[in-house]
C-alpha cells in the first residue's frame, strides 16, 4: 500500500506548506526587518553624532587641563611681578624665587628682570644662581613680548636635542614691577597628559604650532624628537582641521591603528590638544547596538520562522492528513479512517471522507460479492444482480416459474462420430444463438449440460406473463436453431431440436458451495419440463397444461394426446405450440417458415 508516498509528495515543489510558510514568514519577518534596518540606520547616525560630541568634549576637557598647567605657571610667575623693584627687598625676592621653584617643579630656572630690563635675579635647579647679574635683558624677545602682551610664550625648544622646554615670560601690571622669565620643562605636562583617559584606551597628545610633539602619554615619543615617527600624529591633526567642524575625524595613530580624533586649539601658546580613541573602541557602543539589534532581528526572524512554521503546519497538517487519507482510500484502503479530531471545517471534511470511505467499503464488499457470484452464476443472473446491486433475489424461495428445456436431437450419435473440434464449434454456435434469444426475452439461462439447456422465467427476476413469454422464447429458439440445423444436417442428417416447457411452483435459489455456486430451480415442474423436452420431436415445442391455460388463446396451441411420462403416474396432458403438425425431418427451412406460429 503506498501509505507514505502522499506525505512526501506534499512536501515537494510548490506545496501548500511552503506557500503558507513563505507568506506568513514574510508577513511577520518583513516589518521586523524593515523596522530593524531603519533603527540601525538612525541609531548609527545618532551614535556617530554622539561620538563626535563626546570626543569634542573630551578634547575640551584635555585642553582645559593643559591650559591649567600653563596658567598655573603663569600664576606663579605673576606673584613675583607684583611689587616694584627697590634696593631693599632683594632677599625677599630670592625667597619668593626659591619658593616658586619649589611650588612649580616644571620651572627649571627663573629670571627676574626689573623695570629697566636689567637682570636682577636668576635662580636655577641645575645651574648656579645669580643675584644682581645686571645684564640688560630688555632686548630679548621674552622681555619685549611680555611687556607688550603681559604674557609671552617662547617657541618650544628641545634641550640636548631631546627635552622640550619653553620660555614663559610674565610682566606685571606696570613697567616698574619688571618681568619674570621662566624656563619651563614641558616634560611635566606628561603628568597631566598621562592622566587624561579617553574612554578605555584612548589618549590625548599635544602638538605645537609647527606640529612637533610636546606631550604624549608615552614620553619617549616626545623625547625622540623624530619627525618621521610623529608624522601620523600631525596627519591626524591635519585631518581634523580639514574635516567638518565639530565632527570627529578618522585617521591612524603611530601604531597604525585606526582612530577617531578631535582637537582643541589652546590660545596663546597655539598648541593643539588632540584626543584620539581607537575606532574599535569609539564605535564599540555602535557596534554593540548593531550587534544587539542584529541578534534581535535574528531572534525575531527565527520567531517569525517558527511562528510561520507552526501556523503552516497547523493549516497544512490536516490537509496533509486528509490528502494522505484520501490517497489511501483512493488506493483501495477503505478501512482507513482519517483521524482528525477537530470541530472545524477540516474535522467535518475528515468526517465526510470517513463516511465516504465507509460507503465505498460497503459498496466494494458488495461488488466483490457480486464479482464472486458472477464467476459462478449465469451471466444474465449475475448481471441482474450487478445491476440491482442486491443479491437477495438469489435467496431461496418458492415461486411460480416457467421452466424451459431444450436439446439437440441425435446429438449423442453425432458426438460419437464427429471430430472434437466440430463438436465444440457446433456447441459454440448453438450456445451463442440460444444465449441471444434467452437474454432477448429476459429469461435466465440456468445451465448448459452438453446439448441440453435449462432456462428459467419469473425467477430470480419476476417476469410479467411468464408463460406467454416462455412460449414466444421457445418459438424464437426453434427458429434460430433450425437455421443452424440447415447447415449441420448436410453432414449429420440425424440432428434435430426440441423444446419442452412447464409452469408451476418450484424452489429457486442459490445452491452449492462458495466455489461452485449455482442458481437453480427444484420441483416437479422442472421434471415435467425436462420430460416434455425429451418427449418433443424435432421442431416441436411441448407445453404442459398450466402453460397452455396461462397462454390461453394468445398463442396457437394444439392439444395432443396425453402422454405417459417417466416419473408421472398418470398420462400428462401435452400441448404443442403451433398447428400440431410436426414438420418433416427432411423439411427445409422454407417449410419451417411456413409453419410459423401466428401470434395473436
Amino acid at each position, binding site marked *: 500500500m503506498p501509505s507514505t508516498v502522499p506525505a512526501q509528495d506534499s512536501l515537494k515543489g510548490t506545496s501548500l506548506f511552503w506557500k503558507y510558510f513563505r507568506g506568513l514568514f514574510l508577513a511577520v519577518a518583513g516589518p521586523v526587518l524593515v523596522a530593524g534596518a531603519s533603527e540601525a540606520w538612525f541609531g548609527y547616525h545618532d551614535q556617530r553624532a554622539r561620538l563626535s560630541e563626546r570626543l569634542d568634549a573630551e578634547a575640551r576637557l584635555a585642553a582645559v587641563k593643559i591650559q591649567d598647567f600653563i596658567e598655573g605657571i603663569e600664576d606663579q610667575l605673576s606673584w613675583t611681578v607684583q611689587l616694584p623693584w627697590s634696593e631693599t627687598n632683594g632677599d625677599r625676592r630670592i625667597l619668593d624665587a*626659591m619658593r616658586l621653584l619649589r611650588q612649580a617643579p616644571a620651572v627649571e630656572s627663573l629670571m627676574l628682570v626689573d623695570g629697566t630690563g636689567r637682570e636682577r635675579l636668576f635662580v636655577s635647579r641645575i645651574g*648656579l644662581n645669580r643675584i644682581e647679574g645686571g645684564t640688560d635683558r630688555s632686548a630679548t624677545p621674552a622681555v619685549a613680548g611680555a611687556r607688550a602682551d603681559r604674557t609671552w610664550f617662547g617657541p618650544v625648544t628641545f634641550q640636548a636635542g631631546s627635552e622640550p622646554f619653553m620660555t614663559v615670560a610674565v610682566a606685571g601690571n606696570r613697567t616698574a614691577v619688571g618681568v619674570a622669565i621662566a624656563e619651563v620643562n614641558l616634560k611635566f605636562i606628561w603628568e597631566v597628559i598621562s592622566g587624561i583617559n579617553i574612554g578605555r584606551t584612548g589618549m590625548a597628545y599635544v602638538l605645537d604650532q609647527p606640529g612637533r610633539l610636546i606631550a604624549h602619554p608615552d614620553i619617549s615619543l616626545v623625547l625622540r624628537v623624530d619627525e618621521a615617527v610623529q608624522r601620523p600624529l600631525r596627519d591626524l591633526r591635519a585631518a581634523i582641521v580639514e574635516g567638518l567642524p565639530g565632527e570627529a575625524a578618522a585617521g591612524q595613530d603611530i601604531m597604525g591603528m585606526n582612530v577617531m580624533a578631535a582637537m582643541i586649539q589652546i590660545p596663546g601658546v597655539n598648541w593643539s590638544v588632540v584626543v584620539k580613541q581607537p575606532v574599535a573602541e569609539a564605535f564599540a557602543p555602535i557596534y554593540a547596538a548593531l550587534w544587539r539589534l542584529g541578534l534581535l532581528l535574528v531572534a525575531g526572524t527565527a520567531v517569525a520562522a517558527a511562528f510561520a512554521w507552526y501556523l503552516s503546519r497547523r493549516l497544512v497538517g490536516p490537509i496533509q492528513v486528509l490528502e494522505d487519507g484520501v490517497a489511501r482510500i483512493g488506493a483501495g484502503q477503505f478501512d482507513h479512517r482519517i483521524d482528525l479530531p477537530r470541530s472545524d471545517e477540516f474535522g467535518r471534511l475528515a468526517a465526510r471522507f470517513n463516511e465516504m470511505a465507509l460507503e465505498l467499503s460497503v459498496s466494494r464488499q458488495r461488488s466483490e460479492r457480486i464479482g464472486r457470484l458472477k464467476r459462478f452464476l449465469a451471466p444474465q443472473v449475475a448481471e441482474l444482480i450487478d445491476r440491482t446491486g442486491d443479491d437477495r433475489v438469489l435467496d431461496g424461495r418458492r415461486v411460480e416459474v416457467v421452466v424451459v428445456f431444450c436439446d439437440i436431437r441425435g446429438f449423442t450419435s453425432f458426438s460419437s462420430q464427429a471430430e472434437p473440434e466440430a463438436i465444440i464449434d457446433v456447441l459454440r454456435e448453438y450456445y451463442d444463438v440460444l444465449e441471444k434469444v434467452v437474454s432477448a426475452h429476459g429469461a435466465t439461462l440456468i445451465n448448459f449440460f452438453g446439448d441440453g439447456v435449462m432456462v428459467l422465467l419469473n425467477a430470480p427476476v419476476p417476469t410479467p406473463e411468464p408463460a406467454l413469454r416462455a412460449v414466444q422464447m421457445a418459438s424464437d429458439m426453434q427458429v434460430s436453431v433450425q437455421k443452424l440445423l440447415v447447415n449441420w444436417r448436410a453432414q449429420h442428417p440425424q440432428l434435430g431440436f426440441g423444446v419442452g416447457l412447464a409452469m408451476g411452483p418450484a424452489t429457486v435459489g442459490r445452491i452449492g458451495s462458495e466455489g461452485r455456486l449455482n442458481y437453480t430451480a427444484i420441483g416437479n415442474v422442472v421434471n415435467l419440463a425436462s420430460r416434455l423436452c425429451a418427449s418433443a420431436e424435432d421442431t416441436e415445442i411441448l407445453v404442459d397444461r398450466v402453460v397452455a391455460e396461462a397462454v390461453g388463446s394468445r398463442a396457437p396451441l394444439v392439444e395432443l394426446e396425453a402422454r405417459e411420462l417417466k416419473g408421472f403416474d398418470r398420462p400428462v396432458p401435452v400441448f404443442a405450440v403451433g398447428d400440431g403438425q410436426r414438420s418433416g425431418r427432411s423439411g427445409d427451412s422454407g417449410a419451417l417458415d411456413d409453419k410459423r406460429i401466428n401470434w395473436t
Partner: protein
Amino acid sequence: MKRRGFIALAGGTVGWTASGHAQAMPVIGYLGSETQERYASRLEAFRKGLEGAGYVEGRNVAIEYKWAEGQYSRLPALAKELVDRKVTVIVAAGGAEVALAAKAATTTIPIVFEMGGDPVALGVVGSLSRPGGNLTGVSSLSVEVSRKRLEFMRELRPTSAKFAVAINLASPTSGAQLKNLQGAAEALGVELVVLTASTESEFAGMFAAVRESGAGGLVFSSDPYFAYRSPQLAALAVRHAVPAMTQSRDFPLAGGLMSYGGDFSQSHRQAGTYAGRILKGEKPAELPVQRVTRVELFINLKAAANLGITFPPSLLGSADRVIE
C-alpha cells in the same frame, strides 16, 4: 596590539630559551656595583617600574642579579657572565661604570642603564633622543648639580671662604665634576680643598682632613660609591662634626646634614619601565635616554642643630623635605 606583541615576544622567548635553558620566563640580568642590601631602595623603585610595564619578578620575569660588591673592577667580568647566560635584557644600574662595563660586554643584548652623569659626554650613547645601538637608559641629574651643592653649602656657611670637595678618582665622571666644581668655586668666590677617596678606608681620613684644612664644609661630588655608602658617611660626618652634603637623600636620612641630587627612585623606576618595554619587544634604539625631572633638596635640622648651624629661610623654603 600590545598584548599581541607581548605574546609574540613571550613565544619567541620560549623558543629561544628552550634551546639553551629550561626556563620559560624572560630573564633580566641585573648588574649592580654594590650589594643587594645597598641597592634595596633602588630595587624597590626598579620593580615598581617593571610592574608598571606589566612584569612581576618570579611571575612572568626572572631577574638574575650580579653584584660587584663595591669592587668596580669586577663589573666587566660580571657583565660577561650575564651575556654568556644569554639574558633577555641587561639592566646596568647605579652609575657610569656599570653602564660602560655592560656596554663593553655585548652589542646585541639590550642594555638599560641608570646613571648620574651625562651619558653622551661619557660616551655611553651618541645622543639622548636617538641612543642607537643596544643601549638606552635613564640619567639622573646628580653629576650636573654638583656645583649646586657647593652653592648651597656656601649659602649655609656664608662666612667660610674655603670648602672641601670629595672626589672619587676611580669614577669616570670625576674629572668633569672637579672642573664643574672649580668653575662654581670661582663664580662663588671660594677656595676649594680637593679630597679624594676611592675606598671606604679612606673615608675617615677625608673627614679628618676637612677639620684640618679649616674648610667650612664638605661637598661630595656625585658618585655612586659615595651614594651607596651614605649611612657610613653620615656617621663619619657626625663623628667628625663636619657639615657635609651629598647627592643622595640617604645621607640626611641617616643623620647627615643635607643632600641635593636627582631623585633616584624616579630614575630607577624609569629604568624598570624601560626594561619592561624592551621585554615587550621595543628596541632600545627607539627609546630615548630619559633624564629625571626631579632634583631634590633634603635637609636634616637635627644634624644642623648638633653642628650649631642655622638654615637660612631661602634654603628651608626650597627644601623638598626637612627632617626635624
